[in-house]
């Protein structure tokens, strides 16, 4: 049972480190899909910039959090 639990944790952990960040990524993809249906291919530029931007933002936020804890 412990082994199964560890396997499930490992599989979920492959995709989710921070639930909020994962939700934001999925929302960005959904917004990108919506924008693509309205704007066509140029919407992928917006998609890439948002994805890159959230990466910078969440990394910075975690760095701030961990420094506050020290």
């Amino acid at each position, binding site marked *: 049972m412990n082994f199964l639990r560890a396997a499930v944790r490992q*599989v979920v952990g492959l995709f989710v*480190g*921070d639930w909020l960040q994962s939700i934001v990524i999925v929302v960005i993809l959904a917004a990108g899909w919506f924008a693509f249906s309205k704007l066509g291919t140029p919407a*992928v530029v917006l998609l890439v910039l948002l*994805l890159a931007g959230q990466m910078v933002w969440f990394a910075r936020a975690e760095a701030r959090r961990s420094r506050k804890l020290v």
Partner: protein
Amino acid sequence: MGTQFFSFGAAFLGSAVESTEALTIVLAIGLTRGWRAPLLGTVAALVALAVLVIFFGQLIVTRIPDSALKLLVGTLLLLFGLRWLHKAVLRSAGVVDLHDEERAYQHTVDQLKDATDWVGFILALKGVFLEGLEVVFIVIAVGGTGKGLPVAVAGGLLAMVVVAITGVVVRQPLARVPENTLKYAVGVILTSLGTFWAAEGMGASWPLDFVSIGGLAIIYFAASRLAVQLIRRPALA
């Protein structure tokens, strides 16, 4: 051909990182308790993982429509790649400690103190299977679209063989493998592949086709370096 090159590279590098972690566990058991139990555990885990690759690989490739598959795999690759990239950025900026194979080795050795023989089998099975799950995901995800599964499987297998041979030769944890650099590179590649396929799944067509993956990799790498610089700024310290 171009996407197959990226698939092979991503599968090889990602599998090399995870195989190194699995090797550390097997070496710790083998060098302290003998080789029979950990080798049996490793073989059992590899058989279970091969069944997963064949079953899910075929199921995914043959049953799911191409556009839905690209969107699904692209989304999962993005989540997976961005998670690795996030960790690599924090490690590069000194916020999180680098992964230490020596410490992981010692932790496994400590677990074996006063343990019975079958514990070596279970630890090897668990370690190889859990680390191998990541290899399976990487291989299926990067190879499951664009008919690149055989190429991705080849990349994953080659990485496992290279790491295993190196482990047998040096007989100690591969502490010098630049794991963070590899994870950083794989994070950038997987995030780029994920974006490429997710957008194709939405119906977008990329200018210059697969060459765009290179452009995406440059953008994500630049963004990650920006994140490292922002985190290192003294104002945050």
